[in-house]
């Protein structure tokens, strides 16, 4: 075997990489390109100028034409590599363009104007991660407001979900009371009926209660998640009842048993529900879209959707705002990814 290949495929324990290992790594690397490439492409594109955005075929990196400040001109002038009549090339700045002829000057000698046919020059470009799209976009896209709404909704709804779901799960798993089975089965039967199927009646109810056009309208109606109750109940069933009995003998109230014994023991399931709830609420789209029609109540997702409709494919701004929208959850994920992926894998289903 080729010694270089042998070196590259060497593995701990002196066993070489087999064919299936190589195939596995190829599959995974391809997976990285497919799963992460589109997001990376979005990020790179979000720095491009409108001119660069319209270019076909597109280039990987965001290029920007170099400019130079010249005495006597208010704005910076774009730089070109220009081929002159005698065949020599010079770095010149363009003053203006008249038809097929460009008037160029040497930045060091701004007095003499050199006339050059436009096909005799190439723009000088550099890779530039300019924040222009973000700044212009942010002036028309109320990012701060939408972010605030999204954060408030996500945190409030998640806290509310954790509290009421765990209370209900506690009652359904640790007590025998009249109606328990009925309540549990009713909740489970709606587990998979999506909100989108009963949109009209839910909207009617929310309007009647007066929660439309308020952030509470996105927080409260979705808080009683059947999935959460189910997940927590299944977990609490595994906690031995003897713990509760001995606490009762010590004179603890039922609320104290719930908050100081059951809740701390349910941490893994609560953590999983927290992750789920944050994902659900952060990415909710349809419900916030219907409940709130005032733009100051938009969440990031609704804001982004309406921004896209408003601007009608001004891609450079849309891309920049899309990056801003996915940034917060990406940062959270980057820090907590190990807990999130293992949490979903271990308790997500059982």
């Amino acid at each position, binding site marked *: 075997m080729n010694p270089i290949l042998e070196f590259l495929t060497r593995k701990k324990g002196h066993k070489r990489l087999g064919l299936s290992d190589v195939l596995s790594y190829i599959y995974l690397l391809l997976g990285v390109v497919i*799963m992460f490439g589109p997001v990376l492409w979005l990020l790179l594109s979000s720095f491009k100028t409108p001119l660069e955005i319209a270019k*076909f075929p*597109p280039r990987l990196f965001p290029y920007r034409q170099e400019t130079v400040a010249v005495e006597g001109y208010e704005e910076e002038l774009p730089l070109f590599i220009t081929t002159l009549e005698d065949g020599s090339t010079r770095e010149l700045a363009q003053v203006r363009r008249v038809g097929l002829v460009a008037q160029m000057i040497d930045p060091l000698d701004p007095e003499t104007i050199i006339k050059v046919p436009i096909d005799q020059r190439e723009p000088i470009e550099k890779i530039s991660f300019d924040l222009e799209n973000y700044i212009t976009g942010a002036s028309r896209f109320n990012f701060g407001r939408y972010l605030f709404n999204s954060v408030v909704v996500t945190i409030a709804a998640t806290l509310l979900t954790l509290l009421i779901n765990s209370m209900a799960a506690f009652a359904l798993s640790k007590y025998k009371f009249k109606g328990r089975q009925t309540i549990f089965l009713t909740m489970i*039967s*709606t587990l998979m009926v999506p909100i989108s199927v009963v949109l009209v009646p839910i909207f009617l109810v929310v309007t009647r209660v007066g929660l439309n056009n308020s952030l509470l309208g996105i927080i*409260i109606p979705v808080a009683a998640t059947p999935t959460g109750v189910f997940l927590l109940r299944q977990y609490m069933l595994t906690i031995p009842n003897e713990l509760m009995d001995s606490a009762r003998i010590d004179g603890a109230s*039922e609320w104290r048993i719930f908050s100081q014994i059951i809740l701390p023991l349910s941490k893994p399931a609560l953590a999983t529900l927290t992750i789920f709830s944050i994902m659900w609420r952060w*990415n909710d789209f349809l419900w916030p879209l219907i409940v709130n029609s005032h733009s100051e109540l938009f969440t990031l997702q609704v804001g982004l959707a309406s921004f*896209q409709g408003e601007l009608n494919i001004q891609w450079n701004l849309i891309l920049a705002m899309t990056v801003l929208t996915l940034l917060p959850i990406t940062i959270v994920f980057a820090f907590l990814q190990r807990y999130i992926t293992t949490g979903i894998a271990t308790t*997500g289903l059982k």
Partner: protein
Amino acid sequence: MKKTFKTRGFFERSAKWITNSIVSVTDLVFGSLQKLIGVKGMPYFFVMPNLLIFGIFILYPVLLNFVYAFTGGTSFFPDQRPFVGTANFDRLFACDSILQPNTCTEDLFWRSVHNTIFFVIFQVSLMVLFSLITAIVLNRKIKFRGFFRSVFFYPCLLSPIVVALIWKWILQDNGLLNGIITSLGYSRFPFLVNATWARFWVIIVSVWASMGFYTLIILAGLQSIPADLYEAASMDGANGWKAFTKITFPLLMPTMLVVIVLSLIRAVQVFEITYAFTGGGPGTATLYLVQFIYNYGFSSPNKQYGVAAAASLLMAGVLVVLTLSQLAARREETY
């Protein structure tokens, strides 16, 4: 747990102090409540907040949906809607043949049903196939497994709007994919303009956006298979493919069943991604059931709440069947 920093101890102590004081204060309130209603009453207290919100915002609307489905007119308020019996359902089923949507009064409904069936079959198969392969690969002795696992899961975190915009940007006429294709010497493809291509990409994008979740579930299923089974099999000379078909496959079956039913349920409900990605187009090529319901109830000028509700009841029926089979699959998994 090792305590590396002194500050950590401080944070832990103050967090404990805060939770303790919250518990003490709430216990003062709810402890006296217990004296009032007795231990027997406490489970009702615990279940009440969740039950109230559930009842008002989920159960009651589900029941109201029946009222809408059996009443007519254009009024939004149930008490102003005349009872029409099964007229809304009859309208949906008014067809020469339900296999040919253009012979139906509500041709859009049947078009969306056909589209949804097509979507569900291909999306679920691809999803299950790719999550299974990915999970098997990730279950091998792989370096950077945590990293790869996170990368495959990452798209699940993105909202439907973000997913749609990312892929629109790649697939548009002057997009990255067409750029690569033309640089290879072919001409551009009308990815989002041609009906067949649009259907294809809706499936691919929705698989891309959610396969990480199912990969994690299958991976957990694979890791719960005891390693000594493989050791024993290997002593008996069963390796590789044989071990896979005789050990992995049968032991993974319950997990796969849950994954299949779960992804079926989610596929039938497909809406937000296509709404933002293709808007149901071109024409009605990617109009799916939930969007049909949404269009009829919310965005069409003459709001046909009755027809929308009838359609959603039919769909809920399908979902209940799928859910029940999922619960059965779960039970099978535990026993």
